[in-house]
């Protein structure tokens, strides 16, 4: 048979192909996690590993048995047995397929910590099986021709090795799935651990003269409540773990499943997981499922574990949305979403983004950690008209920042923005906006930043701005807004800055010499509501000083039209005549 060498090459290249294709497939799949049927193909192939793997195990062992039988019973020494060759042929191909699928499976399927080492050993034992089975197959085929007698011996040695290695590989594979010592455990079960008893623990500590620096009830339990028990609690039991009572953490878990090892934070899985960087796949809380713990919190938990993980019985309950609302601080960035940003909502947002981007509009999430969206029309300038605002459909629940600066939108377009009630930043600067358009803005109760510079807005329009409870920054440079109205608004709304864009003059250094010679900083004066003219030009106004006529007029949404008051405003003053009355 002259084609032996070519057959050998074919088989070798098949093995190479099988081995080489696996990592490539895995790479494709991890790049495309959830896509079409085809994209999911690698994952499917990977899961075939446990099915296919039975062929090489059974057949290689069977082939070895046939050869032993052939040698011992039938005294057939020079040639391989036909049954052996048949088994080796299918067994070697099966081994190749199993190794390939296994490689994919190892890369794609999530696996627990500590298993990585097992997987490596298993991986290379599997590859060794393929190589040995391949050698056995080739040697068997050559040996069967009877031309090279030595080949039969090579075949048998390789086959016995392959059968041995496949057995060991199979054992490691089982260990990955069922855990090490799964078989022996049945014979020699480990006693279930008993939970450390709080009173004995405390007594021990006391006798050792130690005191606890971390208190479970007040320092640790709240962390578990805020960050953990939503998923590891009575509702979800993710990973079959509950952290809402001592019993679930210690008593109900097997010895090798303990997540907290009292006195040993380093080897406690709980501590390991919470200290991983949040983009690690094993990190807790998982990305997007909750706020990561701060370094201080992690350190505190470590100390608590090292001090013996003393767990006193306190209720640990995840906060509800209402609690979160109640405790939310003023500076807490994006508000708690009242809607669920599920896959459908995500898809709606992505499709809106896609349409906007096609139009050349900048549309993107504000950050990788929250669903909030930001859209910039301003880079397209006057090409953008009211009609383009329809592109925002679908972003109603998530749009927090919208820039329409310098576009050709009108009051009508602005009126249509009232549905984006989560908007926090809105640029309408350099547009044809008038007071009429601003009325719709009143519905945007979350608005913190409103840019109206270079628009036709007048004092009248400020009434709408005054009704925005959270507004902090208002820009009215180059508008019809008078400095007096801006001042009044700033006075009415402490915490709001109204920027009229007046530049301060250069600082004067002709101050009294004592000021320069005095090294200590004098206490800063009381912060007053300011109309910031871009720096030092803050103007203080006491609303109480305004005459009644002006107050009434502003409350009604317009400026006082007394000729004397109009003249005073023009001069940047308060009407003295009316003030006296």
């Amino acid at each position, binding site marked *: 048979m002259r084609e032996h060498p070519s057959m050998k090459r074919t088989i070798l290249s098949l093995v190479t192909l099988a081995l080489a*294709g696996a990592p490539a497939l895995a790479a494709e799949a991890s790049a495309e996690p959830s896509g079409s049927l085809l994209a999911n193909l690698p994952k499917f192939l990977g899961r075939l590993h446990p099915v296919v793997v039975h062929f090489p195990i059974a057949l290689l062992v069977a082939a070895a048995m046939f050869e032993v039988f052939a040698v011992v019973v039938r005294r057939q020494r020079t040639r391989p047995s036909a049954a052996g060759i048949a088994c080796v042929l299918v067994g070697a191909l099966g081994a190749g397929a199993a190794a390939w699928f296994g490689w994919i499976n190892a890369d794609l399927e999530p696996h627990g910590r500590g298993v990585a080492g097992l997987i490596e050993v298993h991986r290379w034992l599997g590859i060794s099986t393929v190589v040995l089975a391949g050698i056995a197959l080739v040697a068997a085929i050559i040996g069967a021709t009877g031309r090279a007698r030595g080949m039969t011996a090579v075949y048998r040695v390789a086959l016995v090795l392959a059968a041995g290695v496949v057995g060991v590989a199979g054992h490691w594979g089982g260990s990955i799935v069922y855990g090490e010592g799964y078989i022996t455990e049945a014979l020699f079960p480990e006693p279930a651990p008993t939970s450390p008893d709080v009173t004995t623990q405390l007594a021990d500590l006391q006798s050792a003269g130690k005191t606890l620096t971390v208190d479970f009830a007040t320092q640790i339990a709240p962390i578990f409540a805020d960050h953990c028990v939503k998923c590891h609690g009575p509702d979800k039991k993710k990973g079959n773990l509950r952290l809402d009572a001592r019993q679930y953490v210690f008593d109900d878990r097997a010895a090798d499943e303990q997540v907290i090892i009292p006195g040993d934070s380093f080897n406690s899985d709980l501590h390991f997981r919470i200290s991983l960087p949040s983009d690690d796949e094993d990190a807790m809380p998982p990305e997007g499922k909750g706020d990561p713990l701060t370094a201080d919190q992690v350190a505190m938990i470590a100390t608590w574990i090292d001090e013996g993980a003393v767990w006193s019985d306190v209720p640990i309950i995840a906060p509800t949305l209402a609690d979160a609302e109640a405790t939310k601080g003023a500076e807490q960035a*994006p508000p708690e979403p009242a809607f669920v940003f599920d896959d459908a909502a995500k898809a709606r947002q992505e499709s809106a983004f896609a349409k906007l981007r096609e139009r050349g509009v900048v549309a993107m999430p504000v950050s990788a950690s929250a669903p909030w969206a930001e859209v910039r029309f301003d880079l397209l300038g006057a090409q953008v008209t009211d009609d383009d605002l329809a592109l925002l459909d679908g972003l109603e629940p998530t749009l927090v920042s919208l820039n329409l600066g310098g576009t050709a939108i009108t009051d009508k377009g602005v009126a249509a923005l009232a549905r984006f009630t989560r908007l926090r930043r809105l640029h309408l600067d350099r547009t044809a906006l008038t007071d009429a358009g601003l009325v719709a803005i009143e519905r945007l109760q979350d608005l913190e930043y409103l840019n109206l510079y270079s628009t036709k807005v007048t004092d009248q329009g400020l009434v709408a701005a005054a009704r925005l409870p959270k507004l902090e*920054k208002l820009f009215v440079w180059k508008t019809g807004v008078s400095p007096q109205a801006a001042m009044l608004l700033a006075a009415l709304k402490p915490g709001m800055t109204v920027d009229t864009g007046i530049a301060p003059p250069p600082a004067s250094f002709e101050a009294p010499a004592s000021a320069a010679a005095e090294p200590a900083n004098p206490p800063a004066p009381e912060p007053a509501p300011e109309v910031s003219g871009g720096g030092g030009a803050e103007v203080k106004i006491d609303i109480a000083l305004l005459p009644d006529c002006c107050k009434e007029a502003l409350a009604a949404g317009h400026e006082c039209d007394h000729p004397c008051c109009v003249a005073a405003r023009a001069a940047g003053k308060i009407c003295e005549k009316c003030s006296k009355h």
Partner: protein
Amino acid sequence: MIDLSGSGCACRDPMWESLRLQTRRQFFGRAASGIGVAALASMMGPRAVFAGTDPRAPGAPIGPHFAPRAKRVIYLFQSGAPSQLDLFDYKPGMRDYFNTDLPESIRMGQRLTTMTSGQARFPVAPSIFKFAQHGQSRAWVSDLMPHVASIADELCFIKTLHTDAINHDPGMTFIQTGSQIPGRPSMGAWLSYGLGAENHDLPAFIVLISQGSSKRPSQALFSRLWGTGFLPSEHQGVQFRGSGDPVLYLSDPGGVDRTSRRRMLDALAALNTRQLERTGDPEVNARIAAGELAFRMQASVPGLTDLSTEPESTFELYGEDARKPGTYAANCLLARRLAERGVRFIQLYHRGWDQHGDLPRDIRLQCGDTDQASAALVLDLKRRGLLDDTLIVWGGEFGRTIYSQGTLSETDYGRDHHPRCFTVWMAGGGVKPGLTYGATDDFSYNVVENPVHIHDMNATILHCMGIDHTRLTYRFQGRDFRLTDVHGVVVKDILA
């Protein structure tokens, strides 16, 4: 060896050459993908196939890790190191020490540059400039900067920045790349890599350089200061020039119209894509991106640099210098226009702050170049509502010594480099306005309260941009690199 060329003589085939140069590991990695891809390419389509080699699609930003306070940075770099002692760090007590020797208890073995290490004595040179406190924040600013003084309430002064370097090039390289040794990516490149461009018609990282008026020659600037190091080349800073064409080779030569340029680029891109498929070299991607960006910039740059639409009031604010392309004032105005157009990182350099001698003369000239325009930029961004999400940083690479370099007289002195403390100010996106942070000793030689290292400042700038500096990394030569190396603590105290 396997003959992959099929030609019998492999040596003439460039494919073979490139394979020969690959390491064994690359070979197996590539071969693996190659065979796997061959099996699936027809089924999965090209995007998925290329995603396999680089999980990040070309140009896809990592995105801010959390909601940013600043969307862009304007870095007003004062190259040469301005004297904190004559501008912001007021030390009135020094008048009593005029021409006395700097005590060893203050110097504490500080290494000196060779420019003064041979000096027989180190006589204290108090500043001759008048200081006053400004605004509600009562910040100290000298009369060299009346305009900056007028906006003191907008600024956050950090008086305790300190660095590791004592000479210009290592100092600038350190502050911009996080390493004194050249070769790391610049901060602008990191931000471009991490956040991508908002405006795809302009580079995400733009560099503007102006010459100082000081009589003493300026320190050199190298383009590697705005380089990408090992990051993909499309993230490197693009320098806009002050005279002639703002961007070199951007104009089409005569006889080439927009359509033929487009066709040329398409054909080139097709060839480049084939090369990319063969070699997988990410720099081919950078080349394609550069061609496309240049094409879009042909349309976007002329409007950007045309200042004729600016009203007269603009030039009143920035000063008449702003009409002259290439001046600091013109660059500040350009920086505002770039900020309006959503450019992520705008890096200005103003040269000439290296006042080893004749400091009073030269620092006046330098402040004359920069004072009004720096303040104007802050004010202009503020009234346009842009200061809210633009972070402005003003500062040099280190500080200057209290002792005089060369002859000290009542009216003249020089100052050598000083790494242990210097003043920078920041304004806008995410930092507290009207704050003076940190304190130095009476000689402005050592930090006595709240030191801020270069890595801390860089970490803070990234934080304002929504980036966790420990998570913006790039794997190169087998390890992860980041701007702050293994250092850096965000200075939470200065965040609004």
